[in-house]
Each structure stands twice: as C-alpha cells, then as structure tokens.
C-alpha cells in the first residue's frame, strides 16, 4: 500500500482549519516516506512546513 491508512486521512479531513490539516498531512506523509530511517532530518522538514503553513519567511 503506497498510501497512508485512510482512517488517518479521514480524521485529518475532520479538522476544520485547513492549514492545520494541511500541515499534519504533509508531516504524516513525510514520516511515512521515511518510516524505515532511524534518524530523519525531520527538524529541517518541520521547520520548512511550519513556515509554509504559517506564511513565515
């Protein structure tokens, strides 16, 4: 299955704030892609995403 458990995606859809659900969706996808890595450079990715969704530079 190349996809995240649809139940999770359903729960995300229930989140009314778009940026929150978008942020979580991206993060979840990122973690999914890197599930087998012990150490991920999640720090950078998270920084990137939060800036994106908060509209910060």
């Amino acid at each position: 299955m190349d996809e995240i458990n649809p139940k999770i995606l359903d729960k995300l859809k229930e989140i009314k704030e778009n940026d929150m659900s978008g942020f979580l969706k991206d993060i979840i996808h990122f973690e999914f892609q890197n599930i087998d890595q012990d150490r991920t450079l999640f720090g950078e990715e998270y920084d990137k995403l939060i800036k994106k969704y908060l509209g910060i530079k």
Partner: protein
Amino acid sequence: MIFEYISLKNYRQYKEAKLEFALPNKGKNFTILQAPNGVGKSNLFNAINWCLYGKELFITKEEKRLPLVNTISLKENRKSEKCEVEIELKMRDEENKLMLITRKQMFYIDREGNITRDSSNLTIVREINHNMVNITSEQQEFINRNIPENIKEYFFFDGERLDDYFKKEGAESIKKAVYRISHIEILDRVINHLDYKHKEILRQNKDLTPAAESIRLEIQAAEEGVVAIKKDLDEKKTSLSEARLNIREIQEKRKKNPVPNTKELKEKREELDKSLEEYEKKIEEHKSEFSNYFKEIAPKILLHESFINVKKIIEDKKKKKEMPPGITKEYIDHLLKSGECICGREICSKDKSKDKISDLLNIYANLSDIGNYLVEMQGDTESILRQVKEFEKRYKDYEKRLKDLQMEFSTKSQELKKIKDKLSGTDESFAILEEQQQDLETARDDMLLSIGKLEGNIKSGEDFIKIRNKDLNDELSKEKRFAVLKSKLDFYSKALEKATNIKEAIMKETKMEIEDKTKKQFFNLIWNPTSFRDIKIDDDYNLSVIHKSGLESIGSLSAGQRQVLALSFIAALNSVSGFKLPIIIDTPLGRISKETRLNIASKLPEFLEDKQVTLLVTDEEYTDEVRKKLGKNVGKEYEISLKEHDDGAIATIKEKK
C-alpha cells in the same frame, strides 16, 4: 495484494518448481499444498520471505547448516563452479497492477567443496500506467511499503503455534504489528517530533524575558518529572498484568484440584483401616483353617493306595464269604461247651470230632479276628477314600476364596493409599497455592494503589504544565517581538493536540474493530456459542474469552476452540490491516480431533471468503472428508514430494487434477 505465482530455482530443496496460486474470484480462493511432514512446506513461506526481504524466518537448526542453494544443483554445476538461486514472485496489487519481484543470489563452489556466495540482488518490475517500469532505487523501501516486513503477524500463520497468540510475547508482537499496519507508529513519530520541536523553539530562543525563561524552566522540569513518572507507571502496569496472570493461573490450578473435604477423607481412612484389619484377620483365619484341614488330609492322601488295597481285600473276602465269618468263634465255643453239634450229634472227646472242632475253632478264631480287624477298618477306609476324593475341590475352593480375599484387601489398600496421599499431599500444596494467591492479591492491590497514585501525580503534573504553558503564552503575548515565536508555539501545540487525538481515536477504533470482528467470527464459527459471553482484547492485545459465568476462560478452551479463536483473530487482523494480503496457514488442522477438524474445515471458507488463502497441509489433516468440505472453494491443489539423494534432496510440486 494477491500472489499469482512463485517460481523457485535451486532454492533449498526446490531445485525447479513453480506454484500458481488460486485467484480469488468466483469463490475458488483456496490453494492447497499437501505434503507429509518434513518435506519442506514451510520453506515455501521462507522462499517468499527471502524473495521479498532477503531473510528466512522459519529455518530449523539443521537447515541453517545447509547453504541456501540446492546442494544437488551445486554439485551438478561443479564444472562451472557456480550456481544461482532464483526466486520470482508475481503479484497483483489492489488496483490489479502487476508487480514482479525477483531475487537472485550466486553461489560458488571450489575444488575443495568450499561454498561462497555473492550478495543477493533484487529486481522489481511494476506496472505503472500500462507500462512495466523497473524500480531500481530504494527497492527495499518500496517493498516494505507494500508488504511490511513483519508480515508474519498478519499473513502467515503457523497452525502448530497458534497458541502463541494467547501468550504475552504473542500479544506484544501483535500490538506492534497492528501499530505498524494502522500507521499508529507514524503518528507516534509525528507526536514525538512535534513535541521535540515545540520544546526546541523555546530552548533555542535566547531572547526570552527572565519571567518567560523561568516559566519555561519550570515547565521543562515538570515535563521531565512526568516522563519519569510515566516510565514508573509503565513498569508498575507490567508488573500488575503479570500478577493478574499469575493469579489467574493459580485460580485455574485450584479449580482443577478443589479442596478435599478433610473430615470426610479422614473418616474414610479410618473406615478403610478397620476394614483392612478385618480382611487381614479373615485371610489369616482362612489360611489357618485350611492348614488344619491339610494336616489331617495329607497323610490320608499319601496312604490312599494302601486304603484302596484294604478295600480290595475286604471285597475279596466278602466275595469268598470269609467275611463276615459264617460261624462265629463264640458259637463254636458254645457248641464245644454244650457237647452238641449243629446237626444234633453228640460231640465227645472219644472220637476226633472234638479235636476237629477245636481246630476249626482256632482257624475261625484267626479268620474271625482278621475279619473283625478288617471290619473295624472298613468304616474308616470308606470314609478316608471319600475324603481323599474331596481334596482337589476343597483345595481349589480354598485357593479361590483366598485370592478373592487378597484382591479385596489389595483394592482397599490402594484406596487407602490414595486417601492418605490426598490428605498429606494436597493439604500442603493446597495451602501453598492459597498462600501464593493471597500474596499475589496483596501485591496486586498495592500495585493498584501505587498506580492510582502515580496516575494522579501525572494528572496534576500535566495540569500544572498546562497552566504554566498558558502563563508562558500570556507572558510571550506581552511583547510584540515574540509574535512569530508564539504563533509557532501555538501551532505546534495545536498540531500536537490534534495528532494525539487522532492517534487515540485510531488506536481505540482499530482495537475495537479487531475485537468486534474476532468476536463475530468466533461466535459464528464455534459450535457451542452459548457457553461464552464475550471476547475482549485489552490495550496490550491480550485476548480474553469470557465464559457465560462471567469468568475468564481462555485457559480452559479445548484445542479445537483455541484454533477457532486464533483463526478468528487472524481473519480479523487480516481484514483490519487494510492491506488485503493473502493468507498462508501452515498446518491449520494439525492438533485437533477428527470431528473438530471437520467443523473447522467446513467453516474456514466462510470466514476467509474473498481472501486468497493458501493452506499447507499434512496427509493426516487433509483427509477425504476435509477435502470434501473445502472442495468447492479449492482453486488449485498441489502435492509436494521429497526425494532424498546422497548429495541432498529435491522437492517437487505437482498439481493434482
């Protein structure tokens, strides 16, 4: 995901084999692989695992010593000095797109017979938009995403070890598998990372006001404290479930050996003691009685020939009329005295008649005496001969009665011993069990108290943290320069909250779904559903079966019932996994009685409908009746046979038409 075929070349005993799986359409979703034990059915599963992950999960010690490559092929290729193992797996995903995975490994053999090998390499071909595309990078990741590595938990089941599901280790690995498969694992990561980032932002900002900084430090200390308490709590919870398990075990033990009624037993013991004494006496008396008889009869038996002789002599004399004597001695005496003979003539001493009569007198006297002696003996003779004749019967009667008495004695002795054992043995062991249970219950209650306290502490800690976070928030709001910081913090907090909620919801839903499905299947398939009330799965994925009496009864299920429970659980896991993976069950009907086997066989297709099922069965399991029950669901049937050679073995897969 369904398997279309697996082809094996030079893999262990499979020199060259191909297995096409039944495709689950039109209800013929079962593939049967029949083979006697030891032939290598499990290695088929190992082959799949090796092809996908380069690892074999179910290798016996003996097999570990052998190389992966078929030894016969290797020897055959001695000239070229190399031989390749190849396993190819063709699959289709849920969108019916093709996936072909091939793993190859080259083995080398030198003159001395030493075997070396290259590392294996993987080829993945996938259908994307009607094109066959080679996947060359991140191959293992691709496979893991499609068929997660710990597939053991939800697609391959060892029928001989289904019981492992009911043990703690089994439950743990199921929990891990469920977490992985429902991506709760991913959510965990998300939560951890969000938390980390949240703290990091604050930590890294060197520009906080002293007030803000001090609150932050407080929060940090409190969080660390809570983490420590949570760890402690986890340990206590583990101890608690262990104690609960132990208590259950003891309860089961006690149920099996209920307290004997000591008073009753003691009374019985006394009764038996007395009875045994009586029997001993009876036996002695019986022996002594016969002894006395024997002493009397023995010489008679030894002399019975001489009595037969006496009897004959008497009979002879009677025949000759010598007995009893015709004329008595007294009569002759009387004749002499009277001087008159029988015929009336005078007896006088002048002629020889008196002498003649005197002589006669002597002869008769003797005859008479002998006759008298014999007559005296006649009674005894008859009697003794009669007694001797009776001996055999009397002896046999004696022996029989003796045997009966001795048997009675022995039976009662054994009874007495049993009672004595019960009184001495279980007195002790029962008391020990009772004590153990009490100790465990006390420990359990203490733990519950501690756990309660710890949970309370955690809550107050978390409440404190919440409040202080709010305070921190307020503090940061005071200054415009913290606006961005604050917005990030808020965002992370909210994200954390949402992620946690989602995780909990999914955990709960997944567990409930598995529980419901297991329950539904179990009650649908078990033949005595009214005996049971409920099936429960706790947070740690321990299975529990509640009897109609309200008691936990997983420990007292029969082998057949456990099998049904395990199969229901498996079916539930498989469907909840959302992966739609094929199911392979090795020896599903192994350890069960004939009748139960037929029951399960008839229900298997029902609860595994729509799934691609492969059953690896032994000849003993796969009786004609079982075959008939599964019949209409079987799409493909194979027989595996093994031929042993000096250099190794070859297994062949042949389709049964």
